């Protein structure tokens, strides 16, 4: 039941054309507290936006805006 309700991609809903790697607050919502990217099946993001999101998260990691792994695990 949960699944059917989260189905909508929130980027599609907001008509986001680009997912900026600098928007840490936004990206943080698509990352677990361990720093892992939340899969599409959980977040409901569409394929296109998930790809853009993944790219942005990985970029953000490179410049230490997001962690590769959270503090406690390291």
């Amino acid at each position, binding site marked *: 039941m949960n699944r059917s*309700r989260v189905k909508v991609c929130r980027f599609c*809903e907001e008509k986001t054309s680009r997912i900026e790697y600098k928007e840490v607050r936004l990206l943080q919502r698509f990352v677990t507290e361990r720093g892992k990217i939340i899969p599409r099946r959980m977040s409901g993001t569409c394929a296109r936006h998930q790809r853009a999101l993944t790219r942005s998260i990985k970029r953000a990691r490179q410049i230490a805006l997001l962690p590769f792994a959270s503090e406690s695990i390291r």
Partner: protein
Amino acid sequence: MAVDYEIAILLNSQLPEGQAEEAIERYQKVITDHGAEVLKVDRWGVRKLAYNIQKQQQADYTFVQFSGDKEAVNELDRLCKLDESVLRHMIIRPEGGFEPEPEPEPEPEPEPEPEEESAEPTEEVAEGEDAEETDDTDDGAVDEPEEDDAESEEDVE
């Protein structure tokens, strides 16, 4: 053909007064000297790092958007690698180039987004997100795909 690029420069936050600005100016000059054009400079200032880089816990973030060719990019990349005060740098090509942005940077304010709540009123999701923000719990909550199990357990109880 000129292509849009953006470079992120993380400078050592312990640089003497004014040195950071000087470095940024210097890199801007590198860009213009190689036939490229600086479009926008975005200074974030000192920010905490998500993980330590060269034992530093914070760095001075700057983003420079420019439009140029590979000579500018290559030279910039080379100089950043050599520069000891640059903790890290990253040059990217933004998808679809830069739009004439109406808002300069949406970053500092987190943009509250009421839609987030209204779009996903699910308890499960809300709980998951809360757990992530509070940051203390084990991440078991996020990984479980079987809510059926959870429900049946509740029923039993």
